[in-house]
């Protein structure tokens, strides 16, 4: 009898261990990360994933302006995006949400690109080169952003890092990062067409322009001049300055001949504050809006990134770019027939009376609710005017004042400003001035000031030898095993 019971128990045990196969269940209706890249569509879909992170570029409009003398952080209170207020005051340190976002999101873009390169040889098909070329451009852009902000950053190429490898990672010298960025861009230039069938895809012109910018940021002036001249002289894509500066940043004028490298946004998908990286809209636009504004033309927003009096006064009164760049809200309201009915509120995060008039919520340009987050307004990362001004600077710095003046005056001519005739250092200063006049509100000012060594002259609290680079978020240093050296003086 006892034997029977024993054998029952034994049988139960065997039954269950043999039942372990029941645990081998596969997730349904979803693809596995290691079981992908079987069709050209798989490559294309993975590429969309790399493009996705371009939309986080809105942060540069904030940081590049707020860190500089162009604008203050603003917002509901000093705790509203505290990181931006700290950057505004040059008190930023190792704990900063926005800087951490820059790091996380750009490395995600790199990881997604590398995911394609890991599997680039799995199948062959027509058009794969172009997919890889676009991915290389994007990887180069993300690396460029990272090194611009943080200096030496770990360079990760053609493979994803695994959890166990992180602690052994090291910060790669900036020169090596730049070298990889240039190599990636040159590869992209060789493959990409001048024009793409789909609006929004990276073109050869975008890659050349970015390469020129990368060279300029390394003070490789003659190389930069040569690179940028490829766009200006050959101009296969037909780039030109858009005639009307004041409406240049309207949605209806998107993707015009002045757009060289543009991040595309859409208002057709809602969003929430919980996930900015999920957005398809441009949150900077709604955030720049006038707080609790009720009135014509503009939509209400969060009063972020407010231009300073200093910037307003920098423009001459007859320069149409002043109005195109800065909204003087009180002047605008008093010019309206129903001025008495128009109202707005002042945020406790600061108030200057001015708003970013390039990237601002306009009533007929809103996306789906919550339209603070869903603006369809594209971010022009590099527009042709910038190409001309970068070329002017590169030519001037490499001794060609003539070409420098030519390119500079193209930009001035568009807004009917008198031609510049200076030369030498005065010409260089004029080019710098023109960059501020033309490009303010677009997120380049701080980086221009840093790379040209002028930051400490104009930014209050800027400490030379420290603030040229942003601090690596302390938590990222810790998460990477604690071996990285923080940037100097942080």
């Amino acid at each position: 009898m006892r034997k029977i019971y024993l054998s029952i128990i034994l049988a139960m045990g065997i039954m269950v261990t043999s039942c372990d196969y029941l645990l081998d269940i596969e997730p349904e209706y979803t693809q596995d990360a290691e079981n992908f890249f079987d069709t050209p569509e798989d490559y294309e879909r993975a590429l969309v994933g790399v493009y996705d992170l371009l939309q986080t570029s809105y942060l540069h409009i904030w940081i590049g302006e707020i860190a500089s003398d162009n604008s203050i952080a603003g917002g509901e209170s000093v705790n509203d995006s505290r990181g931006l207020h700290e950057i505004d005051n040059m008190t930023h340190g190792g704990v900063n949400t926005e800087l951490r976002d820059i790091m996380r999101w750009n490395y995600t873009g790199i990881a997604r690109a590398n995911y394609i390169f890991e599997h680039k040889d799995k199948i062959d098909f027509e058009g794969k080169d172009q997919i890889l070329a676009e991915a290389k451009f994007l990887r180069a852009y993300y690396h460029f952003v990272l090194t611009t902000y943080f200096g030496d950053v770990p360079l990760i190429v053609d493979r994803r890092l695994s959890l166990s490898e992180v602690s052994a990672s090291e910060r790669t010298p900036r020169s090596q990062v730049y070298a990889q960025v240039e190599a990636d861009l040159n590869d992209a230039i060789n493959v990409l067409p001048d024009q793409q069938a789909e609006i929004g895809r990276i073109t050869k012109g975008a890659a050349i322009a970015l390469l020129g910018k990368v060279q300029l940021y390394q003070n490789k002036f003659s190389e930069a001049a040569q690179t940028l001249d490829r766009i200006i002289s050959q101009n296969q894509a037909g780039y030109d300055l858009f005639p009307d500066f004041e409406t240049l940043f309207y949605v209806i004028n998107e993707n015009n001949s002045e757009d060289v490298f543009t991040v595309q946004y859409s208002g057709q998908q809602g969003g929430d504050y919980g996930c900015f990286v999920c957005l398809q809209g441009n949150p900077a636009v709604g955030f720049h809006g006038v707080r609790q504004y009720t009135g014509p033309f503009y939509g209400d927003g969060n009063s972020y990134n407010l231009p300073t009096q200093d910037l307003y006064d920098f423009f001459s009164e007859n320069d149409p770019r002043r109005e195109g760049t800065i909204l003087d809200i009180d002047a605008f309201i008093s010019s309206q027939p129903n001025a008495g009915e128009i109202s707005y509120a002042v945020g406790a995060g600061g108030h200057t009376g001015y708003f970013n008039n390039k990237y601002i919520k306009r009533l007929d340009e809103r996306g789906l609710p919550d339209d603070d987050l869903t603006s369809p307004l594209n971010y022009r990362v590099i527009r042709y005017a910038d190409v001309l001004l970068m070329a002017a600077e590169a030519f001037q710095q490499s001794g060609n004042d003539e070409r420098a003046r030519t390119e500079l005056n193209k930009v001035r001519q568009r807004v009917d400003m008198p031609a510049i005739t200076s030369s030498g250092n005065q010409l260089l200063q004029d080019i710098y001035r023109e960059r501020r006049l033309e490009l303010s509100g677009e997120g380049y000012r701080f980086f221009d000031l840093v790379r040209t060594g002028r930051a400490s002259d104009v930014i209050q609290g800027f400490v030379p030898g420290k603030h040229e680079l942003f601090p690596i978020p302390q938590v990222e240093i810790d998460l990477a095993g604690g071996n990285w050296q923080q940037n100097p003086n942080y």
Partner: protein
Amino acid sequence: MKKILWFCLAMCINCSLWAQTIAISGTVTDETGEPLPGVSVLKVNSTVGTVTDLDGRYNINASQGDQLRFSFIGFTTVTRTVGSSTTIDVEMDSDVSSLDEVVVVGYGTAKKKELTGATSQVRGESIEKMNMPRVDQALQGKIAGVNISTNSGAPGGTSNIRIRGVSTSGQNNPLILVDGVIYDAEGLNALNPNDIESVNVLKDGTAGIYGVRAANGVILIETKKGAVNSKPSFNVGAYYGVQSTARQLDLLNSREYAILKNEAFAAGGQPLPFGNTNLGLGTDWQNAVFAEAPIQEYNMSVTGGTAKSSYSIGGSYFAQEGIVGGPKANFERYNARINFTTELAPRVRLTNVLLYTHEQSSTIPQGGIGSVLYNTVNAYPTEPLRIDGRYSYLDNVNDIINPLAQMANTYNDAWVNKIVGKEEISYEINDKFTAVGRAGYNYALVDTKNFNPLVWYGTGKAPNTARNANLDPVILNIGELEIERGANVSEARNTFFDYNLEAFLNYAETFDEDHRVRGTAGVSYIGNRSMGLSGVGFNIPNNDPALADISANQAAGGFLNNVGSFQTRQRLTSVFARAEYDYKQRYFISGIVRRDGSSNFGANNRIGYFPSISTAWIISEEDFFGSGAIDFLKFRASYGLSGNDQIGLFRYRGLLNGQASYVFNDLIVNGAAIGTTSNPDLKWETTEQTNFGVDATFFGGIDFTANYFIKNTRDLLFQPEVSALLGSYGAGGFPPVINAGNVRNRGIELELGYDLRRASGLNIRLDYNVTFLDNKVTSVPTGLDFIPGAPFGVGGSVATRFEVGYPIGYFVGYQTDGIWQSEEEIASSSVAQPGARPGDLRFVDQNGDGQINFGDDSDRTMIGSPIPNVIMGFNMAMDFKGFDLSANVYAALGQDIIRNYERQQPYANMLSYNLERWTGPGTTDTYPRLTTGQTRNTVFSDFYVEDGSFVRLRNVTLGYTLPRTVTENLKISSLRFYVAANNLFTLTRYMGFDPDVGAGNPLFAGVDNGIYPQARTVMGGLNIKF
């Protein structure tokens, strides 16, 4: 020797009276006069015996002088000597000793006396008396070591059950089994508390019989069953109550508001908003939002049994409206239940359990920024409720909308149909072995419908769905198309199916009288399948909720309409064995081992083994133990491992379920990206628990239980932040789940019970329990200083953390030290506080560098913890001559709450403590100045942390049962009326609506975003039995 003499004597008497056998008959009743069927009636020292019938009647032949012994489980045995009367009616008293109570443990039962583990039981009656909508609400304060906190007081709102502390930053819910069927904690709404026979809680290592799901403790709920040989007994119950809010916040009225705002704007260098501050009281938004709301329940059941079968059948209806939202925050439940047990063949018993629930519920936005109460608190009093016949807009505040408009435009409905059932066959193979096989299932069909009409809450309000006040829809341009985005309805149908197949063998045998051996061995297979289908339909005609169905959508070309679906599977295969041995019912030892395989883990770590051992010694059975005051004394010790596999599915592998979208040609294009980064080495969390306990009974009526436990949870399943280099932070991307981090909970639990029965008819039962808990994180993932939790304010800093050396979810921020009184004080202070102005909060320089650092963590410190140090429950029940009175008091002490429902906006209304603000040197050292300008007073500091301790009278009930003489005339066996009040008063210093602020995520516990408070309820009801 004496016994033998007596025996002989009895034999003699027997012999001498042998001839005079007479027929004795009578009725056996309990102390309430209810007939007791199935009572065994035995002539002492004979084999002559019988059993009472359904009416409690018996007939037996006996002789004068014979002794009749009446015995029945749960009642004190009665012996009567046969005299001259042929009728012997017996009233039996239920057994006072709780030691013989049967407690349900895993895959079997045990007498409380014999337990080796830390197990607590709550009887159905005490749950029933509370008249709570949910069983977990009724359990608050009933069991030592079990902390129940409330997520929301709204109808249908949920609670958190935490057994012996919070042990993980992940899933802390205990395993809940209803009649052996898996029942998830969120679904407890479906269970009618009146249907419950008992709730049994396995708190220590002996819960390990449930292996990889047992780390958070196990709750075994048994529903009511019938008894064989009992007459049908009908129970009808009903109550009706009125709920109201127990508290309103003290907010500024219009005049106060205007004065304070003028002051704040002046300080901020802005023009004063109010020329005239004499504005009277203004609008009381709380009065407009809070309303009285009904709560009611009606139930009926019948229990009984024949010689071979027993049954318990019941039905009930419960309905509750919200004190905020009324019918928009509604919960209705219909329950039907059939429990049926029958003997299919000799020794073969079939048990059938079937519970059906239908729920209908509506909810309003609650418990966060944008919730109705958050808007109510922040809406300013100078705005009327309505302007020109429409709801006012509250134009001066961003993101705060008119809460009445919000409620009026909210249409969130859900319907749940749930069937829980079990078929169990037990076969008593012989007197030693019983085999049990069972299949259980829990199937829930959940339908939700959410109608979003076109609404205009005022300019710039984020929840606006219309383009303007005329409710014109937003127009979208997709390519050449212009599409109206009208009212929409989103619907979802989700099904959740849990099933378990189990077989086990129980064995019991006693050797040489003193050696008792018992064993259980079994197998279990648990599966879970869920599926969902959802859709959104746009352009519902006429903005009409009556047409809110996807079928009515008029979306042009269906361009906006959206669909989604999901499906999940999860499996667990297990083998388990338990062996128990005791010697002379004095020394007990028990061992358990369970082998679990969970589909949530990869092949590297799929199988886990969970052993535990427990022992007990009943010292009061020892010969050397003098009886004295102590009637019973037992020592217990246990040690065991258990696991937690609740981490979501397929986290061990990398799936392409991330989001990848970009815009080409002005259209959103979707691609593919990795979602959660994979970790093939993922394994379960392990909880190692040691428990020492004492059970004692003294002075004949006082029960005492004490436990000391140390619970270490290691390999916590975390999704900690990982290095940016891994690229886990894209849309839909998440860091890998890894095993890292340890938590320790230590505590002492005491339970005291006192029973008093007086001959006068006065019965009193008092129960008191107290738990002291110490929770500490002992390790976090490498490279991390802490894991951040809940944010403070809007876009504010992280206020809670999971950090080594601190309780889970402790609050971190600046410590304040009064108010800066003057410029001189600021200038002469040894600590520089950037931006400080007179009237600002003075922060403490934690790192002593002479500077308050706002850019980093160096001056932030622990300023609170959401975990109570002590929780207590006191339960009282007494009855006297038909009157009964019961009360339940719950106290949680030592926890803190973050006041996070104050919107820091220039025009938002404020709590009245702001009247005490700093206005000049010496005015206050507590409340800072008001300003709309830049200030650090709004950074997270202990100014926003309050003591959350509270003592609450949760229930008090006064009932009266009509005398039997009256009820007999009415042809019913009992009729009781009662009045009761729930949540009658709360002692607390907390300013908010309700100090019982829970959160499912332990890192969000104690953060009050304007919690939906628990209502105060006054009710009356009746119970009829016939």
